[in-house]
């Protein structure tokens, strides 16, 4: 394993049982994450994009063992997060942090800001009393909040400021790796850029590594070094950001990108409108999961599941049509 690898995910699966009937028998499974392998290097931002229900949030939670996995390995600095004891895992939690989407429901309304941010320090036994207050004050100012905010309660803040509190709570522990799950989705447009820029600054300042989960492809393009595109619990395409956006290979990625409305009124864009809805992850289609909506479906796609293959230069795509070196058959 290379030295600069921070996280290596191997064949992670997370299925949720569907229970029905009088005895709550398990009749089916929602295959939320299905054999995902991913490598995240130190200091990079890995973008994870996809539509609702594609399993991107479940993957983010499972890899940190916030959800127990069905199978697979999640190697953090060569240690499998899934096989650690509760105590070992708790110790590791300081290094592995999470930023949640909804700044309204992820902050305890009964605690003031200094308690919310300081709680983590107490839990991990990192600082107490005056030292704790100092650390809290320091991190609040780093996150663009004023010292007088420390004694206020979450309801007194706007969405953007709440997200700053959430980020401060995460960073006060001085983590190594942060999963940011749709951190800007519930914010106004003019505020989104503030939070993204703050995350970028903090990344440089604290040497962080991010997994940035979002449905917003244009924001992911802006913030990420590598991007993984998920569809129905699987990775459809994975590449460096530059290569992915310049030359997307998987038909799903191409359609997803063409679907984003642009303000460039002169752009003569060819829009690919996918037909139908995303299938249910409890009854995924046969073969390639994307075949019922794919404009290029062949017979083979209905039967055989395509493997995620390197088509050159670390650009991976899971499609029968994509050839070595890019381009379609």
């Amino acid at each position: 394993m290379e030295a600069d690898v921070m996280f290596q995910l191997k064949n992670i699966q997370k299925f949720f049982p569907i229970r029905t009937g009088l005895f709550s028998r398990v009749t089916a499974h929602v295959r939320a994450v299905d054999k995902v392998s991913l490598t995240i290097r130190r200091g990079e931002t890995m973008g994870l994009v996809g539509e609702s229900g594609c399993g991107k949030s479940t993957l983010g939670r499972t890899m940190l063992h916030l959800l127990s996995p069905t199978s697979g390995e999640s190697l953090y600095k060569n240690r499998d997060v899934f096989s650690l004891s509760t105590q070992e895992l708790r110790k590791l939690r300081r290094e592995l942090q999470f930023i949640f989407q909804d700044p309204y429901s992820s902050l305890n309304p009964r605690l003031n800001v200094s308690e919310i941010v300081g709680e983590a320090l107490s839990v991990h036994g990192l600082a107490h009393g005056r030292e704790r207050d100092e650390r809290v004050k320091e991190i609040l100012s780093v996150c663009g909040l004023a010292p007088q905010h420390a004694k206020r309660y979450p309801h007194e803040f706007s969405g953007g400021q709440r997200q700053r509190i959430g980020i401060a709570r995460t960073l006060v522990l001085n983590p190594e790796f942060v999963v940011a799950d749709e951190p800007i989705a519930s914010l106004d447009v003019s505020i989104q850029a503030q939070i993204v820029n703050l995350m970028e600054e903090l990344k440089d300042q604290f040497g962080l590594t991010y997994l940035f989960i979002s449905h917003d492809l244009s924001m992911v393009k802006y913030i990420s070094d590598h991007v993984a595109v998920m569809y129905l619990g699987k990775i459809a395409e994975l590449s460096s950001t530059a290569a992915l956006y310049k030359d997307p290979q998987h038909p799903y990625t191409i359609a997803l990108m063409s679907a984003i409305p642009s303000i460039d009124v002169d752009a003569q864009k060819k829009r690919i409108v996918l037909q139908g809805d995303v299938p249910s992850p409890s009854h995924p289609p046969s073969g390639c999961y994307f075949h019922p909506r794919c404009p290029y479906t062949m017979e083979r796609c209905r039967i055989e599941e395509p493997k995620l293959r390197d088509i050159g230069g670390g650009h991976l795509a899971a499609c029968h049509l994509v050839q070595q070196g890019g381009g379609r058959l």
Partner: protein
Amino acid sequence: MGVNELLQVTNLSSSFQTEDGLVRAVRDVSFHISHGESLGIVGESGCGKSVTCLSVMRLMEQNGRIEADSMRFEGRDLLSLRERQMQKIRGNEMAMIFQEPMTSFNPVFTIGFQLQEAIRLHQGLNKKAARNASIDMLKQVGIPRPEKINDEYPHALSGGMRQRAMIAMAISCRPKLIFADEPTTALDVTIQAQILELMQKLQQEIHTAVVFISHDLGVIAEMSERVMVMYAGRIVEIAGRRNLFKDPKHPYTIGLIRSKPDMEIESPVLTPIPGTVPNPLHTPPGCPYHPRCEHVMDICRSTLPELISHEQMHQVRCWLYDQQGAVHGS
């Protein structure tokens, strides 16, 4: 006012009495829309874009108050109409598409029942003819197996399908004007693309005027011929699509464009707008945008600028541009 005007709103102000005080959600808003035209209203949460439309349709809550110099729809003054007369217009000549189709359908009635209700009420069709008309509508909005979906309850449909059914309901009486309030915000991008394509197709087919409300500049750019930007209850800029996106004038419009990366346009840095959207209970004096504006001058803090014509069809509310369109102090 041109001959072709469908709706002309002059100095509309809407306010709500709340426990914390009077919220002036819309202030002195004037705009017009012609037959078959598409007008976009863009702005952030609380800017008054939705309340503007609800006011025109007179769908305000009990604690809401609408004042306007006039609100003319095809020559009729909407403000002076009785509620009964208004009911004949609503859903018939004017319709609305809401953001969340799950909460705007009644969960205990079938899709078909709710569609037929409007058709029977406004077009006086009998039960059987209304059923056929509703199935026809569902077919027109691209719903597969319309006969079956007609008898389904709203919960059985996916988000995209529900929004299609919502559109079917809105167009069922061939309205002259549709207000679409964030119709794709709750949907995934690939489903959003389907809905936008459908709306463009239908607008051409039935020649309806559409007021398209969104916080997403990209969606507005694709769906509207003219664009109106709102901030803190007021119009800050109105222009044709091309002018607005290629040559934005108001610092807020420029700020919005700069703060969002675009797939087609390379942006090496994002420039956020500092500060936050003002609390509607305490709107700043003078120009409401002044605390966040990078070009703020003394006059901005005390006096509200007028909405003035910068060029033909391009109006802006900012002290940087005077009557001749020359830039102050630069």
